[in-house]
C-alpha cells in the first residue's frame, strides 16, 4: 500500500496564475480531506468528501478555491489567481469511511510557493 499520494511535491507559481493540486487516497478509502498547513494557523480544514460527494466545505475560501473528486481514486484542489498568502503546504488525508472515530492517513503534502 503506497499510502496517500500527493502530486506535485512542490509547485511554484507566479501571482495570478492557477494551481492544481492532486491527491490519490488509499485504495478502498472513501473519505478524503484537504488541509492547509502554515506555521501560524497550523492545520486548517478546507474541505471533505465522502464517497466522492462534498460533505463539508466550510473551510474553503469561497472566491478562488475549489475542490473536486471526480472518481474514488483522486481528488483535486484548484486555486485560481494565486496570491502570495496562498503559499503553504496543502495536505490531503483519507480515511476508510469518514466516521468520527477513524484515523486520518496523510500524504506528504504539496508545498505551494506563490511568487
Amino acid at each position, binding site marked *: 500500500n503506497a499510502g496517500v499520494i500527493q502530486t506535485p511535491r512542490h509547485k511554484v507559481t507566479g501571482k495570478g496564475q492557477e494551481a492544481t493540486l492532486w491527491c490519490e487516497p488509499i485504495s478502498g478509502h472513501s473519505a478524503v480531506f484537504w*488541509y492547509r498547513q502554515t506555521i501560524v494557523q497550523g492545520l486548517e*480544514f478546507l474541505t471533505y468528501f465522502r464517497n466522492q460527494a462534498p460533505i463539508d466545505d*466550510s473551510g474553503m475560501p469561497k472566491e478562488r478555491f475549489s475542490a473536486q473528486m471526480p472518481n474514488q481514486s483522486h481528488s483535486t484542489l484548484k486555486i485560481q489567481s494565486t496570491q502570495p498568502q496562498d503559499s503553504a503546504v496543502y495536505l490531503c488525508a483519507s480515511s476508510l469511511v469518514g466516521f468520527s472515530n477513524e484515523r486520518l492517513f496523510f500524504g506528504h*503534502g504539496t508545498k505551494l510557493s506563490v511568487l
Partner: protein
Amino acid sequence: GDSVTQTEGLVTLTKGLPVMLNCTYQTTYSPFLFWYVQHLNEAPKLLLKSSTDNKRTEHQGFYATLHKSSSSFHLQKSSVQLSDSALYFCALSGSNTNKVVFGTGTRLQVLP
C-alpha cells in the same frame, strides 16, 4: 463551530524530563479527540485517540485523558526522548459532518 486550542507554540525540554502539551476544545456535539505527531519532513500520523470520558489512553509512552467537564485532552509523557522532537497536533471530530479540525500545533524540542 468546532475549535481546538493549543496554547504552547514551542516546548523545549531536556531528555528524561516529563512533558505535558495542552489541548482544549469546543464543540456542541459528542467529541472524538486525537493527537497526531509530525516529524520533520514527514506526514502527520496518529498518536492516540479517545472519546471516553475520564479514561486514560496510551500509545508509545504517551498518554492522554479526555475530560469532558473541562473540555481538555492534554498529552503527557513521563520521560521524553530525543526522538520525540516533533510537531504535535490535537484534533477534534465533533460536528454533525464528522469533519476533523486541528489546533495550531505544539513543537516539542528535546535537548540532550
